Structure formats: structure tokens, C-alpha cells
């Protein structure tokens, strides 16, 4: 997965290198087309016969972290409008924005075609060779306008609203530590009761942390049936259990 070959506007190379450049801040997350990364990953996935859940989990964790980084870089002061929306309204808003972008892409394609069809239209850029030289004259100006322009430039932009903190993804690491601490006290716990009362976004991030723990081999995850509580068991405990049962 980390060798995933990418060919984006701002970057060409393996996914791994992209991560390294982003983490070392040699590349701005806001310049990276993350949808392109997802598409490249899906293409690779489609070529394979079996779905590699580990790879998918890892990818989810990484791409969501990148999305968070990028969202923060792009819209530092965007109000938490979306957070206040009901899921249906959010879907509506998302569809509206996607439609808007899609239409702009179509408009860009139209402009590109137009450039080609108008390639044989030539006209003069700049003044005619033997045209009279125009003279520009400016009416008397008020010097106060200069000060006013500078005052405006010296005014700090509105302080960044903290409302959007609610929209921000809590770091995955926060849940990693929380679950590790929990597992140091208890051998197993129910995911659902542990994240009860948290926001949907927090629950999603907590789940990503869970996948991360599983990937590292620290926990085993089991679920009796779809939508049944997800049970988390400390990995070494499970191994010991299995060993005990086998030897018994």
C-alpha cells in the first residue's frame, strides 16, 4: 500500500514518499489532491482478487489524517456550519458542493475546447505600432486615502473562531493512548459502551484507533453478529487463552 504509485499535479511518486514529504513539511497538504490518492488506491484495490483488510485499514487511517491536516490548512476559520447539520442536510450540502465543482470542471473543459477551436484567431496584443502615445492624468488626491489603505493592511484578520474545534477530528493518538490505558487495567472492553456519548466524528476516529491497535497486533476484535457490540480483547491475553484451551 505504501508503495502505491501516485501521479498527481503536485506530486509524483510512491505514497510513502508523499507521507514523508508532508510530515517533514516539504509539501503543503493544501496543494495535494487527496481525492486523486483515494482514486489511485481504489484502482489498485480493484485490480486485486482479494481485499486486504489490513491495507484498507491502514489506508483509512492515513488518508483521514491527511484529510484532517488539509482541511485545517485550507479552512482555518471556517465556521462549524457543517457540524451543526443533520446527516441528511450534510449529505445535501455535500451533494451541492460536488455538483458545483463538477459544473466548474465541465466549464473548464469547455474553455479548453474553446482554446483549441480559437487557435487560428490571431489579434494584436498591446499597442499599435504607429498609434498616438496616450498620456494618463490623475485628478488631485487626498493623502488621507494613503493612510486609510495602510490602516486596512495593518488590521489583523478576524481572530480564528474556535467554533470549528468541534468539527476538527480529535487526533487518532488520543484514542490510542486511551485504549492502551484501558487495556492495561482490563483485559477486554466493549467498544460501544466505551464511546457512548461521544460525537459521531469522535466515534469514527476511535474506530480508526482500534484498527491501528489491531494492525499493531495489540488487540483482537470480535463481534458476535452484525450490529452486535464490538468486543476488544488484549492480544496477549487472547493468545494465552487460546494456548490454555489448546493445552487443556
Amino acid at each position: 500500500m505504501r508503495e502505491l504509485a501516485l501521479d498527481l499535479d503536485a506530486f509524483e511518486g510512491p505514497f510513502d514518499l508523499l507521507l514523508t514529504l508532508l510530515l517533514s513539511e516539504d509539501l503543503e497538504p493544501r496543494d495535494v489532491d487527496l481525492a486523486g490518492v483515494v482514486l489511485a488506491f481504489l484502482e489498485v484495490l480493484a485490480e486485486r482478487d482479494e481485499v486486504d483488510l489490513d491495507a484498507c485499514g491502514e489506508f483509512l487511517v492515513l488518508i483521514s489524517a491527511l484529510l484532517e491536516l488539509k482541511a485545517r490548512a485550507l479552512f482555518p476559520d471556517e465556521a462549524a456550519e457543517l457540524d451543526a447539520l443533520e446527516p441528511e442536510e450534510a449529505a445535501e450540502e455535500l451533494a451541492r458542493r460536488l455538483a458545483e465543482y463538477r459544473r466548474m470542471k465541465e466549464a473548464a473543459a469547455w474553455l479548453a475546447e474553446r482554446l483549441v477551436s480559437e487557435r487560428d484567431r490571431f489579434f494584436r496584443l498591446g499597442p499599435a505600432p504607429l498609434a498616438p502615445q496616450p498620456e494618463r492624468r490623475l485628478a488631485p488626491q487626498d493623502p488621507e486615502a494613503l493612510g486609510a489603505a495602510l490602516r486596512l493592511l495593518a488590521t489583523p484578520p478576524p481572530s480564528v473562531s474556535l467554533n470549528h474545534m468541534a468539527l476538527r477530528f480529535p487526533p487518532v493518538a488520543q484514542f490510542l493512548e486511551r485504549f492502551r490505558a484501558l487495556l492495561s487495567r482490563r483485559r477486554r472492553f466493549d467498544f460501544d459502551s466505551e464511546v457512548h456519548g461521544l460525537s459521531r466524528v469522535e466515534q469514527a476516529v476511535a474506530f480508526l484507533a482500534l484498527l491501528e491497535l489491531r494492525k499493531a497486533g495489540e488487540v483482537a476484535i470480535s463481534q458476535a453478529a452484525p450490529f452486535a457490540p464490538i468486543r476488544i480483547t488484549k492480544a496477549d491475553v487472547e493468545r494465552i487463552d487460546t494456548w490454555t484451551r489448546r493445552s487443556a
Partner: protein
Amino acid sequence: MDSTLRLIAANPVDKLARTVEALLVVASAPLTVAELAEAADDDPERVETALGLVRERFSEPRSGIVLEEVAGGYAFRASREAADACSRLFERPVERGLSPAALETLAIVAYLGPCSRPEVARIRGVAADSAVASLVERGLISEAGRESGPGGAVRYKTTPLFERVFGLESLAALPRLDDLGEDATELRTRLLEVAESRAS
């Protein structure tokens, strides 16, 4: 009296047409009927008539100089027949190597009117700084004030050169956005369908 009448009868629009030709050959941007009328010190209606004569004289394929209606006014251009010769002598610095990112940004500024970099970034999902800079450098967009409020971002609009390069009579000649791509309702229906098929 007689002689004055005879003077007017001597095809006076012909003279006006010559003046219009002269103005258009030295102008550095398309001229509107109002601008032509003011410079020629004549009526807009008569200028329209004179433009008819000029159009007749300067039209393809009989002429190498062609009158076109573009960017809200009138201007001369080379005939398409001479395009090869022109391309050997003149570069196309404005449109050469316009990136897809720049074209998307240009489309957003053209359709949504004065637009700031953050607005463009919000729609494209990618920062627009270098695309905007390259469009400004090419003269296809220019600054159009700042967003209101302190610390407001600079907004941009397309220039007459944009309309000229793309051969548009005016911005109104852009295709309607509704005719491009699907609308939000359709897209939402598709999103929901995908979600449902996943769930089932």
C-alpha cells in the same frame, strides 16, 4: 445651402466608416459603439451603420483583416486563412501551457464573478495560489477589490483579454452552467443510491 445638401448626400457614412476603420486599427482593445461614436464625434446609430460597411469590407474570405464583435466591442483580427503565417511570426504567450488547474480557476472566476482565492480553493478543494498568480500574469484575470471586512481577501475578475482570447462576444456568451454537468438533485440521488447498495 445647396452645396451643404450636396455634401451630406455624398455618402457621408462612407467617411464615417473610414474613421471607424482608422480608430479600430490603432486601438489596443475592442471599442464599443459608444466609444467609437464619442471619438468620431457622431451618432451611435450612424456608427452602427458605418460598422455595417466596415464589416462588409473586412470579412472572410475576401480580406486578410477581419472585423469581429468581441469582448463587448469591435476589433480587427487576422483572417483564419492567415493563421499559419501568423503562428510562424507571433507567439501565443497568453494561452500557451495553461494548466488544468488554471483553467478550472479561470472557469470559477468567469462564472462566479469577482472571486477570492479562498473561494476558489473551497470549490476546487486545492489551494489556488499558483493558478491565480499565473492567470494574473497572463492578463486573463485581474484584481477587483477586496472582500468586505477587515483583512478581506483580494477578489479577482476576468479581463476583456480573457473574452478576446476565448473569442467571446461578452461573458454572456459563456454556455449556461445549467447546461453543463448534472445538477445537485441528480448527484444527491446517485450518492444515496450508492449508499443504499452498499448497505444492502
